[in-house]
């Protein structure tokens, strides 16, 4: 076993003895570590940091509390949902633009609450059917939808894991005005090592276990504009309970 594997196992064994709040704090600590170890720019890569990143993503995956085993890269499905026709996409894009003025900056992204269309989609039968089809039954909609905006040079988000509100995250690319100088993309860090770029076209959705698999968005280039809608779901846990702190 590699050092990364044995260190991750040791952390995993510790996790078995932790309270729910301690486990969430451990997820927080490991997520913060991943943000530094896997950062997209300004960081030198070496063997030790690579081992530490491998340990971190493996330990995070091992902390996943779900009844079903999740894929190593956390992605359970990607594609364009049948309900996302051009009209619906255009309506959501228009709503995202209307919400942009109320967006607030957090780290290197701008975030706004969902409008009526996004909120309705978050609890819709369409979305819940899609989630149940690809991720299994028993998953509940949190009812939380947020717009994310990356529309200035250098925006993005360092690798991280999400809160339990977005444990299973439906990430929908609404708009991507790319430029020749570069292209910001969603990146996931599989528990088995390495990194994968998830290239989406507007209207496509990726369903990812975002609280267990490290993911981030590479920085935008000058002139690039990305609008994303993100919708939260919670899978059933191994003991049938959901997070309650």
């Amino acid at each position, binding site marked *: 076993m590699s050092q*990364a594997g044995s260190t991750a196992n040791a952390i995993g064994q510790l996790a078995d003895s932790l309270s729910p709040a301690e486990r969430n704090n451990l997820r927080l*600590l490991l997520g913060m570590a991943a943000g*530094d*170890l896997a950062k997209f720019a300004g960081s030198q890569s070496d063997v030790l940091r690579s081992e530490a990143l491998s*340990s971190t993503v493996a330990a995070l995956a091992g902390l996943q509390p779900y009844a079903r085993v999740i894929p190593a890269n956390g992605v359970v499905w990607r594609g364009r949902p049948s309900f996302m026709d051009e009209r619906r996409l255009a309506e959501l894009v228009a709503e995202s633009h209307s919400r942009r003025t109320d967006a*607030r900056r957090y780290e290197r992204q701008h975030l706004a609450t969902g409008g009526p269309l996004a909120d309705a989609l978050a609890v819709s039968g369409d979305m*819940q059917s899609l989630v149940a089809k690809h991720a299994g039954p028993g998953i509940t909609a949190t009812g939380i939808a947020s717009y994310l905006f990356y529309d200035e040079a250098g925006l993005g988000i360092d690798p991280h894991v999400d*809160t339990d509100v977005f444990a299973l995250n439906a990430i929908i690319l609404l708009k991507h005005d790319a430029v020749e100088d570069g292209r910001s993309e969603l990146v996931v860090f599989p528990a088995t090592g390495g990194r994968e770029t998830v290239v989406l076209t507007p209207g496509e959705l990726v369903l990812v276990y975002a609280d267990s698999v490290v993911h981030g968005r590479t920085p935008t280039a000058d002139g690039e504009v990305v609008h994303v809608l993100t919708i939260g779901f919670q899978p059933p846990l191994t003991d049938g309970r959901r997070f309650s702190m």
Partner: protein
Amino acid sequence: MSPDERERWLNWTVRWKLSGRALGWVQATVTAGTARAAYAVLRDERGAGIASEALSALAHWLHQQTYVERVVAEIADTNVPSMRVAAAASFRPSDNRSGDEVIWELAFSLSGRNDGGVLASTPRRNGMTEKRDDEQADLEAALPSLLDKLGALRGELDGDEQTVFDEIVRSAARHTEQVKADDVESHERIFMKPMSVHLTEGMRDEMLALPKRLGIEDQ
């Protein structure tokens, strides 16, 4: 009260505070541990968040006054407006159905019984959720014990494992510093996607001091 005294039937009219004008009604059927809620708002008053506010107030009242741990609402799966009302009041759809209706539920943690109601689910404000002080306090209170356990774990690791572990801890502290520097507004109470939104000032201080606390040298 039902004839067999197994259920309490409660009904309220929803009114504006100032004018007393009736806006709708809420009702609850209370059995041991659970209450079933129903609500309606007059047609001309819809769309202003009245139903979700009334439903949320009803659920809290039921929890505090009747000690129910779970409030449910039965909603037809075609009734999107009612789903939005329930979602805005922090209810979540369950796997259970009653005929052609989905049972939405709001569960309360036991610790909330005596302090005004701590939601086990995440309360929502205008589409953006907000961390309850109580939840944040739970996380903050649990951090020192976790750090003690991490210290004990570090002592059990062999040399190479400890080297990797130390780099993880150093990296967590470094990124904590980075997030602190980038946090251009006060977002601590806003519940958003990254786990870093859980970091209070106290937790940040603990994370920043963690390498030193565990005896990990700078690199």
